[in-house]
């Protein structure tokens, strides 16, 4: 056994060992890497097996989500004492193999690869956005001499501006072809190709720089260096100043797992968090680049109709009054964007006071949350359709409630998170009290007699059930002002005041109450939901 076992450094800012998808096989193979025994399913490559065991073998062109290209030659290892080194990303592991990854000849070959890669590299880390999560930079510490033996002019490439999302600093490109393989194998397109040959090889679109696919952010993700750069993040912040929290994308019912990277108390970017049961290593550009629409038209303080400001305590009091005086004229509408905990508390509150609740899916109505637009993005724009539906007890439908409204039998309407449409809002004239809890302006807030400010997903924690029935939790990324309440705080207050339930301090308590009531959630607790989520026994769409 030579030296210490090399454990994984954080690559690509993953913060944890890279997620590797091992082949499915009942048989296993056992072999050694530098004397350390490794067992993996039959069919695994040496590199896959090593990474899944947390053993570091440096690599560039290998990406766990893509086919192996074997072109960077960084992952070379010695196999069974053979003099010629072999690429560990290609060679299948076999029983009894003896792999040497840290001998001098192996290190020399890797140092040579680093030297070759850096010959023409601009070494512009000080203003490169990738610095801090760059595989080239990481490996330079271990496999580079810090000196150049190159005396000639460096090869350069023009900047390429592919779209309003992506650009390319070709001088930094190491021709690993990850981007080309991502498009071809995952996204399904052929917008990128290799051009020319030998030392003149170039990568990108042809002639016109007109990328139009919905996964351009992933191209920046898979780029192991700072060549493909996401314009939204260009010169935004050094990655090592960012703090990541676990998020779930709210763009659709896929529920892609995210890292929400914040700088101070602002979101700097979101990026996919690998989850082999949900989004693999990917997320779409809608989720990645359009989250900032959540920040538009924010409602930050309570108000009465006609824009009349009201202080928080008075606003809550007004809401309590509305509930208490509603009688059988009470109805609730909860958006399928609400978290499970919010939906549960809201439904408990409405039912506790004798009303009924209906889900709101958006102007387009309900869309099967399993319907896909492509390999990832779903047609249902709601992150929690199945969660909300499984929680609402004896739910009504929105159309039923609307019919009742039109017939004048609804006097008090509570709305959580739903935006409604101008047309629907126009029909609410007959409802005496409309209390809307929401984070941004919409027809539902304009029509309200009382508006209570809600939060955006980054400002709270909670759970969603994605289109496959997978319960996933997310953490709070941004701090709220001290006196601000989340939806859970508001709902808990109202329930307590009305005397229909116990107060919930936080999401975990709300989840506990939910788990104690709704069958599908039985036995679960917020803090023990696995980071990869857990499948619920609920009926999806037939």
């Amino acid at each position: 056994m030579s030296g210490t076992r090399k454990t994984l450094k954080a690559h690509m800012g993953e913060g944890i060992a890279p997620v590797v998808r091992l082949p499915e096989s009942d048989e296993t193979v056992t072999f050694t890497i530098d004397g350390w025994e490794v067992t993996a399913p039959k069919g695994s490559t040496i590199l896959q097996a090593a990474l899944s065991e947390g053993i570091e073998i440096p690599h560039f062109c290998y990406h766990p989500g893509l086919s192996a290209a074997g072109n960077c030659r960084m992952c070379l290892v010695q196999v069974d004492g053979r003099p010629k080194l072999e690429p560990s990303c290609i060679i299948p592991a076999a029983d009894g193999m003896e792999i040497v990854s840290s001998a001098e000849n192996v290190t020399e070959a890797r140092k040579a690869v680093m030297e070759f890669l850096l010959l023409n590299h601009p070494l512009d880390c000080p203003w490169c956005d990738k610095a801090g999560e760059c595989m080239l930079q990481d490996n330079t510490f271990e496999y580079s001499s810090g000196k150049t033996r190159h005396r000639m002019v460096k090869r350069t490439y023009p900047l390429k501006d592919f779209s309003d999302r992506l650009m390319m600093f070709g001088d930094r490109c190491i021709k690993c072809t990850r981007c080309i393989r991502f498009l071809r194998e995952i996204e399904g397109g052929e917008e990128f190709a290799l051009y020319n040959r030998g030392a003149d090889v170039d990568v990108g679109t042809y002639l016109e720089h007109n990328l139009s696919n919905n996964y351009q952010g992933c191209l920046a993700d898979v780029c192991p260096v700072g060549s493909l750069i996401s314009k939204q993040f260009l010169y935004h912040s050094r990655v090592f100043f960012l703090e990541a929290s676990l998020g779930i994308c709210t763009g659709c019912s896929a529920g892609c797992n995210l890292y929400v990277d914040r700088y101070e108390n602002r979101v700097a970017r979101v990026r996919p968090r690998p989850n082999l049961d949900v989004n693999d290593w990917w997320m779409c550009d809608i989720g990645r680049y359009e989250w900032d629409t959540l920040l538009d038209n924010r409602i930050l303080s309570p108000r009465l109709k006609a824009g009349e400001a009201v202080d928080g305590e008075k606003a809550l009091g007004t809401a309590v009054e509305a509930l208490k005086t509603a009688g059988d004229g009470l109805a609730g509408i909860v958006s399928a964007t609400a978290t499970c905990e919010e939906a549960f508390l809201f439904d408990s509150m409405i039912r506790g006071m004798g009303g009924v609740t209906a889900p709101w899916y958006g102007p387009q109505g309900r869309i099967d949350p399993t319907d896909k637009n492509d390999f990832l993005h779903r047609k249902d724009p709601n992150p929690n359709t199945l969660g909300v539906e499984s929680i609402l007890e004896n739910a009504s439908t929105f159309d039923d409630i609307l019919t009742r409204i039109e017939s004048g039998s609804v006097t008090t309407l509570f709305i959580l998170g739903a935006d409604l449409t101008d047309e629907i809002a126009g029909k609410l004239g007959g409802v005496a009290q409309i209390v809307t809890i929401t984070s941004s302006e919409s027809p539902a807030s304009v029509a309200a007699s009382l508006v209570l400010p809600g939060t955006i997903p980054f400002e709270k924690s909670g759970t969603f059930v994605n289109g496959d029935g997978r319960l996933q939790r997310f953490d709070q990324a941004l701090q709220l002002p001290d006196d601000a309440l989340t939806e859970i705080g508001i709902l808990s207050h109202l329930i307590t005041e009305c005397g229909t339930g116990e107060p919930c301090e936080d999401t975990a308590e709300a989840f506990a109450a939910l788990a104690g009531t709704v069958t599908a959630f039985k036995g679960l607790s917020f803090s023990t939901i696995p980071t990869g989520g857990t499948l619920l026994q609920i009926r999806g769409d037939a």
Partner: protein
Amino acid sequence: MSADVYRGVENREPILMTPEAVEGLVTLEEYRSKGAGYTALEKALKTMTPEEVHEEVKTSNLRGRGGAGFPAGVKWGFAPKDTGKPTYLVCNGDEGEPGTFKDRWLLRQTPHRLVEGVLITSYAIGCNQAFIYLRQEFDREAVRIRSAIEEARESNLLGKDILGSGWDCEITVFMGAGAYICGEETALLNSIEGKRGMPRVRPPFPAIVGLYGCPTIINNVETLSNIPAIINNGGAWYASYGTEKSTGTRLFSVSGRIANPGVYEVEMGVTWSALLDDLCGGPSREKPFKALYPGGSSTPILKASEIDDVIMTHEAAFELGTFLGSGATIVLDEDDDIVDVVLNLATFYKHESCGQCTPCREGCRWMVEILQRIADGLGTMDDLDLLIDVADHICGNTICAFGDGAAGPVATAVKKFRSEFEARVAVSTARGSE
């Protein structure tokens, strides 16, 4: 072509360069009256099972003539049968290795013999669709091959139910588009598939996952041209030529500073001197030989003194740290400057690298940069070690053997002819101190 000479085998009939072949066995009529005339194909189809054909070729120990020298019979055995997928045969006629021109000779002189070899091999490996890949510059040679295919088809030697055997086989000619790397067998497959000619990583090997994802055997033009004779005369007959491990005869393309350049067929195991002095007439400029690339520009250079009394076999070449490669011998004499020669070839490799492997892509360019400044009198002594270092870092670390072929000869040349390199550097040192 001038010197299409066969004189290599004492008292034995040549196998490929028979007097009739040298004259040209172009039409089916000629091939029938003066050559094997598809008798081997008929023999195989009518009297032999595919296994028996395969067995003969194994017995012959015919080794690949494309560069690697891998035994053809062994290679054929790698293609799995009954995969439910078609098996393909691809004949490699890309002939791009600098110094090599024997396949072109075979294509021009004996196109039917190649077609017959392709058909017999297809029969042996269970292939119904073979491809002949020719470099685009063999435009006129392709005419020969195409008309041979058409003639064969008209005589029911190709196509459906060949010679009433119930066996079908088609041959398609695919023309390259200018890329040396497409001679590398997996790059060649990509090229037929309409892709950039970039070699594939192995495993999987092409015998198992080759053209269109199907089992595929790739053999050189010369390798396949030997098959008819082996079937007609038997594997043992073929193995009686040459030495135990290097059987048969081989075509050598001899060029450079040689009195009579050309294609020569020699029995394996004769001395280098028998080829270069006796057959080729020695040096062309009355200067002594200085060095030679024994098997093409990708094979490490030998000093002339190293081949004294050495025989031409794979094993003997290996002992000298080099290879017989594609049998392309490039001879240099005392007046040739090694630095210029190495720079010329390094430039070739820089142009021809497919560019996917880091060491080959960057290293080939770097070697040219260093060699250029040495040639320009701007090099330093450190550059010589740097050059060896760069070459060593490419060798053995790439997807395909191109990297070895590009770098090995450079490192060897600097090591063997260091004083010549130092002399060029000394010029620059002197100039620098003026």
